């Protein structure tokens, strides 16, 4: 019997082909190991979210 390969694929990776480019970019910018506030900061850095503060790249530059 074949050995079962260890499951490492995330569920989110399994739906990547069902979403638009923007949503794919959103998925790729989410680090599931981080807490929500850290993820929001990352999304702001990628200019996906904008709360008008210095988190955003364009505001930094």
């Amino acid at each position, binding site marked *: 019997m074949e050995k079962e390969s260890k499951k490492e694929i995330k569920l989110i990776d399994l739906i990547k082909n069902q979403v638009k480019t923007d949503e794919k970019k959103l998925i790729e910018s989410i680090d*599931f190991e981080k807490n929500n506030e850290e993820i929001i900061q990352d999304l702001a850095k990628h200019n996906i979210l904008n709360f008008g503060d210095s988190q955003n790249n364009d505001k930094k530059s």
Partner: protein
Amino acid sequence: MIKKVDKILNVCSFSFFDWDKINPAKGNNPNDPIDTFKKNNIIFGENGNGKSNLINIFKSLNGQDIELEKHWDYLSEKQEIKLILDNNSETFFINSEWSNNILHDKFIVFDKHFVDKYVHSLGPGDRDSSLRRQERGKNIIYLGNFASYNNEIDKIDTLKNTISEKNEAYLKGKEFEINTIISNKNITIEELQENKTKIEKLKENDLKNRKNKLEKEENKLDKISNALKEKDKIKELLFLDEIGTGFSLIAQMIEEGKEKEIEINPPEIFSFTTSKGVQATLNKIYHKKDFIKTGLSLLDSQKGICPFCEQKIKNGDYIQTIKDYQKIFDQSFAEEEQNIKKLLSEYRKVLEGIRDLQVSTKNKNIWKQIIQFISIDKELPNVFISDEDRDVIKNELSLILEKEKNILDEIRGTKIAQVRGIIEKTNKLTKEYNDLVIEINKKIKQLKKDMVEGKLVVQKSDIVKDISELDKEIFFIENKKSIKRYFEILKNYESNKKVVESLEKLFTLLKNKIIDEFNNFVSNYFSLIKSFVKEISPTMDIFEIEGESRYDRRSREATQCGFCIKYKGKECTRSLSEGEKQVIALSFFFAQLKKENNKKKIIVFDDPITSFDAGKRKSTAEVTQRETNDFGQLFIFTCDPLFREFCLNQFSDRNFYYIFKTKGSSSIHYVPKKRETIYDSFETDFKNMDSINGSNENVVIFGQKLRFCLETKIKEDYFGYSQDSLSNMIKQVSSKGKSKFDKLIDNKDMILQIYNYCNTGGLAHYPKDGSTSWNELKDKIKQYLDLDL
């Protein structure tokens, strides 16, 4: 990995167990130096010797709610367990608690509990229960990593909510700021949004124009409000009068019986003299005779000479003729003089008109009335001449007076050019005045008409609207920076909202995907179970093993997974034999191992083969070896000598242990591949007993060793107890030789007496009633040594 169970004191049947006192230390057995648990460990013990108690210790370490009871003979004594792991870390069980969680959730145990929890009841007539379906579902969630999938979904869900809340708070905060600005103007956020394009087009340099316009509109509103309040006054409102028509140096004169327009030429009038009068007279009659024309051209230069014959006029020559002409001249001259006087008079009238020019008091009064009701951009001009111009006019009037007194004298000093300028200026002024009067009169007329037709209310409402618009526009321009910032925030808010929408979409996709994955997993899982059934018991492949499953991550019982075995489409779980049930349970367990992600776990089998025939025992040993190979450690507990031997043969890299209970205490005995070495080791200890302290602990330890030597030696060496085939068994038995068996038979009473002493006799109750002692044990050991088995 567990290196060894170093000590067990007063836990269930292990009243006193010390690994190092029972099992040889590394290096003491040159043939088999491995004296601690290996990756694979086979532990043999007959029922009631303490296998299950050791498994319970493992389960307790695993975090299961297992009560590790005290030995019934030592209820007041303390308990202690000490385990040493392969990294030499230790874990203790003291005061009913483990010192750490190193081994928490590190075991997967196949036992009756596992079968009952996940597969089927071992009792008769008990069908699949909802609790079991839930447990199975939970297990699948664990094995399929669905908890981690669920975490992802929850992460997306909470992230979505967090962003949404943050976004709403972000907008609300900024809306509060903008509201403090716009609320004073009664402007709403919605209105601001509706006017976004308009606001963006508004320019700061339009502010002044708009403010002016607003002022005018407000003025208009005052007027129209007044008009509405005082309608009667509007009815009675008079029209303004125009002032006199333009001043002109053109006079209406009658010449030769006809009215003619003659331009007043003051220099010419003021220079009218006799000669000029004659000249003028001649000019008037020159067309009567050609010669007169010629004569007239000569009249000035040739005084005293007839202009017609060029002779001196003397001696009355031609006198009559001249007299005739003179007569004509006198009449014409007088007419010319009259004309001059008339022109002077006309000139005076013009000048006096300018000098006396002024606006009527009536107009001024009307003006005061109408400005209450009508907005007029301009004031009525002040129509009067300057002092300087007045002086010019005055001077000109003096000249006229002087000329009138001496009509034939030439008067010098006319300022006709300035007079013409004054006339032009005055005419312009009066025109402006009259134009304005016409315009205002039109407005008065319109106002009266609008009032009659009831249009003023509508007009007022329109003005109010215009004022409101202008007011807002001015406000928008003045606060454009703040408003623009708000629009940016609004744009960000909308953009963030789209992210929230995307997360919602992802959330839904993930929810659907996890169900797909769950169903796929379940299908694959049951295929695995079937394949294991086929491998362990090939004749059972005619059975269908199915599991109806459902997954609802939000419900209290998120998952359920059924389990049934069918034969020809009919459910047949209840009619399965115990062996078949055990095959299915084992297959279920192996499928679980296959799906287990954490391969560092310790696998424990608690006698998986109790109802198996030899074939299934062998295949179980094979599958167990293969399926546990990747895991951290394996413990197979069995009471079946045949299965034990299958396992010992199957696992090349393994250690073998016996569990014995002397009734005083259970103990784990390491068994080297060459068993003689352990007998030699124990028997050497026996021979040195005189030098050993006869403590209670040593009574137990030596009692355990005695039983091990007596029982295993006779069972294994004499009767081939652990051989897997009859031929091997005969081979083992015959290798002992006839004389050994004769001795065994001759001493059977002694052997049984020692065995009973270990098993149910004096040692069994030690030291509860003091029924044995170190010396008694020494006697029994001496008897054993004397037997020379």
